[in-house]
């Protein structure tokens, strides 16, 4: 099947069957789920412990906060980029996204955790009084010395709220189904969440438009967030790092990592969640192709930046290349380059691998690891440059900063907290979009065509 959603399960061909099946799955959760929740909760507490240890160093010591900043950057890049995987194909009306979109949208919940992690980063960022070059022309325009923190906070808040709103609007019809089938206190809660949804044409039109607008805004906010964070918390700390493309690269990495994290989550649902009837080769194949093209673009974005610095070879540029690529972080850069580009390129051109379930998922794990290391490379390095005596040239390149116990604890805790909130989210919101599943049943018919039978797929305007 080329492009259509294909459930491949005879019993699930009616809307009613789909609804029953998915709602049942949402209600029944095994003991494994409960154990996993407890484990991740405990690990999250460890993160808090790590944070307290780190706090003892104080906010004045910028370099030690590098790993914390990198953790936030990683979550912003991977988890908050994931909803785009729902938004983009929905705007393009691609049918294969139907069982993916909720999995991706649920990552909006992680925005809450990521915002909490962000707060200390804002404190650790040195004020603009140190005279470094920023976008805010501090000194020229008499800006407040904490302009970067203020704007980034506002943008991140907007992004998180926008994501949650999008998730809610998208889940509204599903909440209504849950409302109709639950009793007691649950019914009250679900009816509040469903906001009187009964499925009139007006409500569906309203929802369609809201999804479009919120999706477009989410994309803009995401790009703005990456722009603000990469510029104010990364580039401006490194004298001479004048890379106009980097904010766009940062946002592109977010799309790539978002696809990767969605693929992995889908695999978990497919393998352990019992959603084999909804998630199948089509989804992995579609996302795999997307990941492949985004990995090729990764190279293009990276190379477009790199060649300018490398060919230009001004002293200021060579210092930046030394810091970020060939200097103390060379091994990390190798890992990033291998898993974000080389492995996806050489593995995904191989047809059997691209058209399998395990193939794209394995590649996605690599991409996620690459994103993780990439953020460490950029932000740990940027935070370690504390001297900004010369605005244009990094005179001395700092050595590699290695993580200590606190950093490891913060990383483990932060990532566990993200997984935890996602798992708890699936308790309330069905991880497969029920209304989108039912919708496709209307659009797809099979009919005879000459000597064969073909699938006819409707594409509404």
């Amino acid at each position, binding site marked *: 099947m080329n492009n259509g959603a294909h459930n491949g399960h005879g019993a699930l061909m009616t809307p009613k069957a789909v609804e029953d099946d998915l709602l049942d799955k949402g209600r029944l959760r095994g003991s494994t789920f409960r154990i996993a929740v407890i484990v991740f909760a405990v690990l999250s507490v460890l993160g808090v412990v790590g944070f307290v240890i780190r706090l003892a160093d104080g906010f004045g010591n910028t370099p030690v906060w590098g790993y914390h900043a990198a953790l936030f950057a990683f979550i912003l890049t991977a988890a908050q980029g994931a909803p785009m995987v729902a938004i983009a194909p929905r705007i393009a009306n691609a049918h294969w996204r139907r069982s993916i979109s909720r999995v991706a949208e649920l990552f909006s919940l992680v925005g809450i955790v990521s915002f909490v992690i962000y707060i200390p980063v804002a404190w650790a960022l040195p004020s603009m009084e140190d005279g470094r070059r920023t976008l805010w022309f501090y000194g020229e325009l008499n800006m407040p010395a904490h302009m970067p923190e203020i704007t980034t906070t506002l943008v991140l808040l907007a992004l998180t709220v926008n994501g949650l709103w999008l998730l809610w609007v998208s889940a509204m019809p599903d909440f209504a189904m849950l409302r109709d089938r639950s009793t007691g206190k649950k019914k009250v809660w679900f009816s509040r969440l469903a906001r009187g949804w009964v499925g009139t044409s007006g409500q569906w039109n309203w929802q369609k438009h809201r999804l479009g607008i919120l999706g477009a805004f989410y994309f803009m906010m995401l790009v703005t967030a990456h722009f603000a964070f990469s510029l104010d918390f990364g580039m401006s700390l490194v004298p001479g790092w004048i890379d106009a493309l980097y904010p766009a690269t940062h946002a592109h990495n977010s799309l790539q990592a978002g696809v990767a994290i969605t693929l992995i989550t889908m695999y978990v649902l497919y393998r352990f969640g019992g959603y084999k009837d909804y998630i199948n080769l089509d989804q992995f194949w579609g996302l795999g192709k997307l990941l492949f093209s985004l990995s090729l673009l990764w190279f293009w974005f990276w190379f477009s930046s790199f060649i300018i610095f490398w*060919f230009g070879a*001004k*002293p200021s540029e060579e210092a930046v290349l030394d810091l970020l690529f060939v200097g103390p972080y060379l091994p990390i850069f190798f890992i990033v380059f291998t898993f974000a580009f080389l492995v996806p390129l050489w593995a995904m051109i191989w047809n059997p691998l691209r058209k399998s379930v395990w193939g794209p998922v394995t590649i996605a794990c690599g991409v996620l690891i690459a994103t993780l290391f990439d953020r460490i490379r950029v932000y740990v390095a940027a935070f370690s440059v504390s001297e900004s005596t010369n605005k*244009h040239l990094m005179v001395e390149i700092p050595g590699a900063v290695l993580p200590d116990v606190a950093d490891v604890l913060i990383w483990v805790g932060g990532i566990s907290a993200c997984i935890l909130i996602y798992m708890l989210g699936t308790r309330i919101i069905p991880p497969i979009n029920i209304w989108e599943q039912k919708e496709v049943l209307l659009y797809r018919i099979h009919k005879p065509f000459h000597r064969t039978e073909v699938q006819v797929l409707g594409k509404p305007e």
Partner: protein
Amino acid sequence: MASTNTQWGMVIDVDKCIGCQGCVVACQSENNIPINTEDLFNQRRAIEWIRVERYWEGEFPDVKARFIPILCQHCNDAPCEPVCPVFATYHNNEGMNVQVYNRCIGTRFCANNCPYHVRFFNFWEPEWPETLTNQLNPDVTVRSRGIMEKCTFCIQRIRRTSREAARDGEELSDDSRELNPACVNACPTDTLFFGDLNDPDSKVAKLAKEEMSDDGRGYHLMPQYGTSPNVIYLKKVDESTKDSNGSHE
């Protein structure tokens, strides 16, 4: 061929420059550069391999006119070299940045990428008045239209002296008039010095060593481009005008 150990370079003592333009004229006649008429200047197509830039130092009452001769810096990491598609400009084994006229196809890429702006394009076929055709230097090619040219450190003089030195079995004498580029010989105030920067006994090497130290007067032009030029400028920082940067107004 001279030994590959040679690194030709120049030292320019800006403090001594009086802006007389003698070097410009000497260069013009040594290297068969077409006459820069008023019309050519108006077209902004005049060719001066070495030029004297005038700039002001200081604020109004204490203003000083300064001059700085600018010629090809013969950069070791020359931005003009990698961009030429046909290797018309390349680095030779004596540390010079040389231009091969026959290879040049005139993309003007090198000229764009030169921060010092010392590369010149032949917009027209060069012409001399009838009376001057016999004064052309036979050792130097007359460049046709459509190609780039620039300062060569008077390579024809270097070649001739080293050839003659090799023939006579003599050491190439540094800082001799035969070896020096025309501009160095013409300078009335000894602003320009030429020689082998790799030969520790040469005048330029001594000057470079002495002046590039921390308390010396030496600097490279536009170090922010990282071109590592073979031309060193010497200038005493004027304490009275230190606070206000030199301006070109």
